[in-house]
């Protein structure tokens, strides 16, 4: 599900509307009513329609602090154990923060060349919530894992501590690669993009207007021109979006990143990746 570029509140309202329609269209059982504060069943229908989602906990899990120190910057890892998933390759991961105003935080599309589908990122968490990761495999089947996180206020919190800096460095990127990687070995790359990722939920108390949402909505990563990963982002990703992923280049080459924000601004950068010694 690709969320539109309208403000967070607008998304929340249209999402509520969707829930109402779903509620009317599909009468709920008594059991469902008891768990009616759990948004997941409706979210699952809204995002994946009637597709079956199997328990993936034997080979995938989510790691996050049980209680976040800063709700605007919650580190999260979606980890896969390739040894426990023979023959399965991850094609897409959808990250859902159930109780956030924009629940779909990101969708990661992985190229088959990725040696390990494990992804790290940083998210905003608006209230105590379950977080779901749903992986679509190349055979078309869906698997999921979840984690519960205690944190509150991350969507409306102005994570931007130094706004003047944020404007001055808008769109700058940094790529970190471990220096001691050996040839043919997978290595973890960290991509960082300077962007305030305004959520659209911060209200100017004097004017009573919301500061407009402005966030990174697409990131394309290629290696020597071939797609490695693309990410659909949203306001639920933290300020200065951070993505960690695996890379296993056969030879020296160039990693290239193109990011686009919701105002249509495009940021590009490329880095030489040296041959491993």
């Amino acid at each position, binding site marked *: 599900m690709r969320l539109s570029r309208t403000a967070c509140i607008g998304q929340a309202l249209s999402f509520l509307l969707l829930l109402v329609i779903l509620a009317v269209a599909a009468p709920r059982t008594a059991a469902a009513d008891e768990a009616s504060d759990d948004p997941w069943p409706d979210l699952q229908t809204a995002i994946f329609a009637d597709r079956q989602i199997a328990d993936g906990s034997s080979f995938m899990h989510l*790691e996050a*602090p049980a209680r976040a*120190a*800063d709700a605007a*910057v919650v*580190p999260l890892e979606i980890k896969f154990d390739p040894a426990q998933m023979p023959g399965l390759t991850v094609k897409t991961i959808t990250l859902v923060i159930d109780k956030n105003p924009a629940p779909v935080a990101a969708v990661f599309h992985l190229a088959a060349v990725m040696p390990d589908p494990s992804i*790290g990122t*940083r998210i905003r968490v608006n209230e105590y919530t379950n977080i779901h990761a749903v992986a679509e495999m190349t055979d078309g089947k869906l698997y999921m894992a979840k984690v519960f996180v205690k944190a509150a*206020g991350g969507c*409306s*919190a*102005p994570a*931007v*501590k*130094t*706004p*003047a*800096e944020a404007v001055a*460095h808008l769109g700058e990127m*940094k790529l970190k690669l*471990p220096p001691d990687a050996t040839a043919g070995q997978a290595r973890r790359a960290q991509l*960082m993009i*300077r962007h305030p990722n305004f959520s659209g939920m*911060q*209200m*100017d*108390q*004097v*004017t009573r207007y919301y*500061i407009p949402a402005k966030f990174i909505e697409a990131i394309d990563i290629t290696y020597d021109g071939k797609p490695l990963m693309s990410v659909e982002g949203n306001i639920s990703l933290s300020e*200065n979006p951070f993505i960690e992923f695996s890379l296993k280049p056969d030879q020296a080459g160039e990693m290239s990143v193109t990011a686009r924000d919701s105002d249509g601004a495009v940021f590009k950068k490329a880095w030489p990746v040296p041959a491993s010694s």
Partner: protein
Amino acid sequence: MILLAGIWLGATAAAADDSALTVTEIAPGIFVHQGVHAEATPENLGGIANIGFIIGDDSIAVIDTGGSLREGKALLAAIRQISPLPVRYVINTHFHPDHIFGNGAFAASHPEVIAHANLPRSLAARAGDYLASARSAMGQSFLGTEIPNPKRLVGKTDDIDLGHRRLHLTAFPPAHTDADLTVYDEKTGTIFAGDLLFMERIPSIDGSVLGWLKAIDKLRRVKAQRVVPGHGPVSAPWPAALDDEERYLFVIATETRKALANGESLRQATATVGQSERPNWQLFDAYNERNVTAAYTELEWEE
């Protein structure tokens, strides 16, 4: 007038009725109320920061007004037990709720409300959250509290005169927050550092750890006799009062850089950085991990 350090014996004004804050005269004409080292509650009225006032020959300047309208009113009551002069200036040292939410108590005398030039923008972005969490923490005690609206903004420096008493205001680049303002009283050599100085209570980084260390370097060059910290004792010797905070921030910056150099993740760093400082600070567990998160996300952009 020169005061020798240690000669002045501060007199505590007795609170005649329980609606007036207890204040201590830390130097001639300078009174400070000490905040408690806790989070805001209905009982403490959000009174967790040091707040005070300076009396000149013609008028009074209030420096920070407390965490709620009620605390601001109790501060005004304390002033009225000491002086009938008008409160012409309300100075906000930064935008955190425990320092600014008493502004409304002084509206009747139409003071000039003064703040760092960045304060209106930064406060606007946070005010909704601040109001919601203060209401939930303080309930009825918070009723009537409004967002301050400073009109006299300080970009670099400014001076005000209370009648034979000049106060020098200095705006800082991002440090504790991006809107830190200090007040220096020339007459007694007293500096109100706001939250550029935490003592006893763990500092909280809501601006820039490197900027804060630079601000401390700059503050050390101020020729003062004593300082009123934003949190801690009502008065402390200058500049030794800066030592503990500087050490804490240095440890956080140094260990975070080391964690980054070792390839440690944000999560790993928040679990290890700064732990040696635990015995030195009150409320350590409530703020240290958040401080490390702030330092890590700042320092990871260094080359």
